[in-house]
């Protein structure tokens, strides 16, 4: 158990070192205000990344996450602003639609025996295209309920604020960790990612679990879409383009193996925070341009992938060797 926690520890140590270095340069970064904003600014990414973690642990990938976030935002905006439906009802509708959407993808992946990559690619086109057909403009959301949720926060000592969406992200992460490590569903997911044939021979309900995994991912993406609409108070069909890549990066940096069968939900949390740290650092610095974010994330990804290879080669010879594709 100790040995298997090494990648998680490595990520956490790297985050702490990176944060310490950033604080040495900009002492202001060590404040509850910055930490609170970390959580608020990355809430939607974090929630989507939890779903992605489950998908990746099961050996799949979900490219439709960003599109589902965009679609959910548009759907909620249209329902509340154009049709005058209460946001809570709109939220329920959006989550339901996304759950069905994810179930359809999981169904296709299992019963047509197609790589998840291509099915979720179709899902991405469908969700993005559907959102663009509903509207091509940004639809503002003006509702008292949104203002209420926006004001809902815990004031931290030192001027920091823990917003509602930040708290929601933490709750989702804790829920995700419980689901992964303390439930039957969680162990099914790990079993599927380890080896789907062995899993089905051992009695794991492969079909049901696959459908549930993609349902979970899409539902969490829709929740991320709700959070994103709370964050921006609008719905825009091109919102959150490319978030799936950030989510995948966060999951990989968090120590989850892309070959499946191994990973931590809480590692993803550290991964999301590390991505947030890179962005915050570049904003604090002021002289670095925004495109450095992408380069640094790419370099981080590379480092962590190589690190995983080294750790796995050193600690578990003959165990699940990353597949020769």
């Amino acid at each position, binding site marked *: 158990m100790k040995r298997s926690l090494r990648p998680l520890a490595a990520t956490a140590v790297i985050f702490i070192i990176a944060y310490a270095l950033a604080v040495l340069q900009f002492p202001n970064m060590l404040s509850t205000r910055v930490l609170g904003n970390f959580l608020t600014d990355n809430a939607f990414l974090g929630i989507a990344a939890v779903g992605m973690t489950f998908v990746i642990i099961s*050996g799949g*990938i979900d490219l439709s996450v960003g599109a589902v976030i965009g679609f959910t935002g548009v759907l909620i905006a249209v329902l509340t602003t154009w049709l005058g439906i209460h946001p809570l009802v709109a939220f329920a509708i959006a989550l339901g639609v996304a759950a069905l959407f994810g179930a359809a993808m999981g169904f*296709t992946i299992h*019963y*047509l*025996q*197609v*790589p998840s*990559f*291509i*099915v979720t*690619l*179709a*899902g*991405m*086109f*469908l969700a*993005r*295209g*559907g959102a*663009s*057909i509903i509207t*091509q403009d940004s639809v503002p959301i003006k509702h008292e309920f949104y203002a209420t949720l926006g004001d809902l926060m815990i004031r931290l000592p030192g001027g920091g604020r823990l917003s509602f969406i930040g708290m929601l992200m933490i709750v989702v992460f804790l829920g995700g960790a419980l689901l992964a490590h303390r439930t039957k569903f969680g162990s099914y997911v790990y079993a599927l990612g380890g*080896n*789907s*044939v062995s899993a*089905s021979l051992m009695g794991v309900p492969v079909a049901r679990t696959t459908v549930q995994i993609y349902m979970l991912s899409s539902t969490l993406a829709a929740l991320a879409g709700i959070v994103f609409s709370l964050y921006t108070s609008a719905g825009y069909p091109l919102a959150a383009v490319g978030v799936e*890549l950030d989510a*995948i*990066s966060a999951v*990989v940096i968090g120590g989850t193996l*892309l*070959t*499946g069968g191994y990973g931590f939900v809480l590692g993803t949390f550290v991964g999301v925070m590390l991505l947030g740290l890179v962005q915050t650092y570049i904003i604090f610095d002021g002289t670095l*341009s925004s*495109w*450095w*974010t*992408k*380069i640094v*994330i*790419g*370099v981080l*990804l*590379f480092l962590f*992938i*190589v690190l995983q*290879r080294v750790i796995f080669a050193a600690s578990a010879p003959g165990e699940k060797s*990353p*597949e*020769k*594709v």
Partner: protein
Amino acid sequence: MRRLRLERLANPQLLALVGVLAINWLLFPSFFNVTWQDGRFFGSFIDVLNRGAPVAILAIGMTGVIATKGVDLSVGAIMAVCGAVAATMVVAGYPAPIAVIAALAVGLACGLWNGFLVAVLDIQPIVATLVLMVAGRGIAQLITEGSIVTFNDPSLIFVGTGSFLGFPMAAVIAVVLMVLVTLLVRRTAIGLFIQAIGVNRAAASLAGIHSRMLLMLVYALSGLCAAIAGVVVAADIRGADANNAGLWLELDAILAVVIGGTSLLGGRFSIPMAVLGALIIQAMNTGILVSGFPPEFNLVVKAGMIILILLLQSPYAALPFKRRPAASNKSASS
């Protein structure tokens, strides 16, 4: 079994292209009207050839990668990098041929990097190429310093907008590249080796195939094709746009390859069919545009198309009620 399916799949692509073109013709009767003007052809159909060329060029390289059971997500980003290299060098005063050669060299280097990660470090292709996909656009912006670099060099612009025997240069480049690469893989044993790696890399290595070198070659080719596509796109708009050049084209290229009947599970592949796949996608895009539908329908139609192909390629299309072969397929895919 495999040969039978290959023959069955050899025709649907052509039929699909004819079908899409026929629908376009019905929606927009002057679709096939081609006029001769200023020493070149003009018309919607010629436009399909011209606009489809970048994806077709990408698909040529992508076919090889997918045939080895890999995938190259970085081609769109490599396009942006290489377009940026060519544009900034021309603006800095270098002659166009040198700028193009430099851009192609950069593309080749990017491809070799991907190949190194996949072949030598044994990293999953999706992850290995994800690194460059994320970082590539940042690098491209670094080269262009965040702005859109525009240029007026006539010989570089010719690559994107010129014509050869009346046909758009981009389409000519795509066809020449397709013929060259097809000859390379079909007239030598390379194609067979690629298929062997795609079916079972360990077995191929045991049979004496230098799978590492071949994988490097395949990814290098994909990088080179991306570089060519990047130069063509930059020359077409007379500028390098680090943010939008080649954005999401990797997905179109993968789709083109899959439409072309190449299996995502490795093995069987066909480069001309992938180019045909790119033409089918472009014919749909152009059709939606000329018939007056909003371009947003594109994505939905594409999604519908993927689902249709999945249904046709699924084991259930061939073996309606047998479950066991389907289960063994799944293990090969994971």
